[in-house]
């Protein structure tokens, strides 16, 4: 891990091995990370088939509101988690990029479904082969569409990834990314 060049699309702090947390702010780190982990408000934007499975995950049986994620915020300003659910076409790519930029800062991206991960079953002129070409992605959930259990597994992985992160380092030195 340390030898490799830092992958350009990952967030600097999150992918580093859990180096020693800042001594003084260790407890603050844990507390803020706990709060960010437990109140991830997803951004209600569905592109294609995966959006229907995302809604099914939010519905009665696979209820993501157990993890505190049930407030699907319609405006990017108030959302922390951008679930790219569906095919990102070339016409939609600038819109997805602008939506990501409008989100307030500690934000995470989950690429849901093969289309968002790598273009899926559409090697055509109109489809962007993977959303990580335009926005940095934290968790890739494969499947076409991924079952609600698959998406939940991806979200829980993201939660553990946030738990390992060091929000205070980011707040004190905002451009550490």
């Amino acid at each position: 891990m340390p030898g490799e060049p830092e992958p350009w699309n990952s967030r600097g702090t999150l992918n580093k091995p859990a180096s020693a947390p800042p001594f003084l702010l260790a407890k603050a780190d844990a507390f803020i990370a706990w709060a960010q982990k437990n109140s991830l408000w997803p951004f209600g934007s569905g592109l294609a088939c995966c959006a229907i499975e995302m809604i099914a995950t939010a519905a009665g049986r696979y209820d993501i509101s157990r993890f505190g994620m049930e407030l699907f915020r319609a405006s990017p300003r108030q959302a922390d988690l951008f679930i790219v659910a569906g095919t990102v076409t070339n016409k939609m790519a600038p819109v997805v990029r602008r939506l990501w930029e409008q989100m307030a800062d500690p934000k995470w991206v989950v690429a849901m479904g093969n289309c968002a991960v790598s273009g899926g079953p559409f090697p055509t002129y109109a489809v962007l082969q993977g959303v990580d070409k335009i926005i940095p992605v934290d968790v890739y959930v494969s499947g076409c569409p991924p079952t609600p259990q698959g998406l939940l597994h991806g979200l829980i992985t993201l939660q553990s990834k946030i738990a390992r992160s060091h929000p205070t380092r980011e707040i004190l030195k905002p451009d550490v990314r």
Partner: protein
Amino acid sequence: MAFKEIALNMGPQHPSTHGVLRLKLAIDNEVVLSLEPVVGYLHRGMEKLWESLTYTQIVPLTDRLDYIAALSNNLGFVLAVEKLAGLEVPPRGRYIRVALAELQRLASHLAWVGFQANDIGAMSVLLYAFEARERVLDLFEEYIGARLTVHGIRIGGVPRDFDPEFVRKIERTLDGLPATIRNIELLLNENRIWQERTRGVGVVGAAEAVDFGLTGPPLRATGVRWDIRMDVPYSSYEDFEFDVPLAEHGDVYDRYLVRMEEMRQSMRIVRQALARLPGGDFTAKVPRILRIPPAEVFQTIEAPKGELGFYIKSNGTDKPERVKMKSPSFINLMSLAHMSRGNLFSDVVGILGSLDIVLGEIDK
């Protein structure tokens, strides 16, 4: 004082455009002056892709067109290929296909009533409708393993047989569904706010509907009796006893009534199909590499959203020369501008929901 209306953009990302549809609206303090839908944000170039795939490879891609009613797309495409190649599907296969297609219609209408109620504000109906839909998706998952993009109808027949235990499970699920549908109707039918938001909104006359090419529930809500399962029966629909629900005003409320009644009719058809399931094998022998002599065919079926058609032109190889999909949502969306002129801005959301459009099918 210079009059200047607000040019509003219900952009490609909006909670109630059911996907990536953009509406360019010109509104004068909440009254819609003009509306122009912009599509293409989900155009994946399906038809170009299909020209480089064999017939059997295309079938799973048709799931991704109208992803809420995947089995209907399969049925439409597969019937066109069989008509082209002159394949004969054994009766058991046809009956299983009818049962699957009607279950898919049930799931699609349940998803629709959930989204429509959520757009108009009744959040809980979305949860109840989706809970009922989960039960239907469980049947698909048990039958073929997939929930949404089911790929459960193949060329020549169906991939797996209905064993008696599975038939009993379908019937048990169907016994539980009328109660949920009844609950949704109790919540919405006589609800004064619901009636105020839907009665007389987005009205379209019978003649206009036919001229606009409207099909499916929006057309039947204007009183025009046009259901492909009844008019040009396919896959042995003529053996089943069901009636086509009609209404007369052609507004959002009537489309809601038509779809709720269609759910009951679908359950009735599934029960008949299961009761009279003929014996024999469930799929015809299809050669591994299916080469079809040059010909062209246009086959339509009654999908939950309307009349779904496939035009296929073959050129003797195992890949089609041209496949064109006639999408009901594509044509129904055209009439949105006409229906919503003069209505309020919040009605546009209701009318758009009542057309039950799916962007995967519009943009192909």
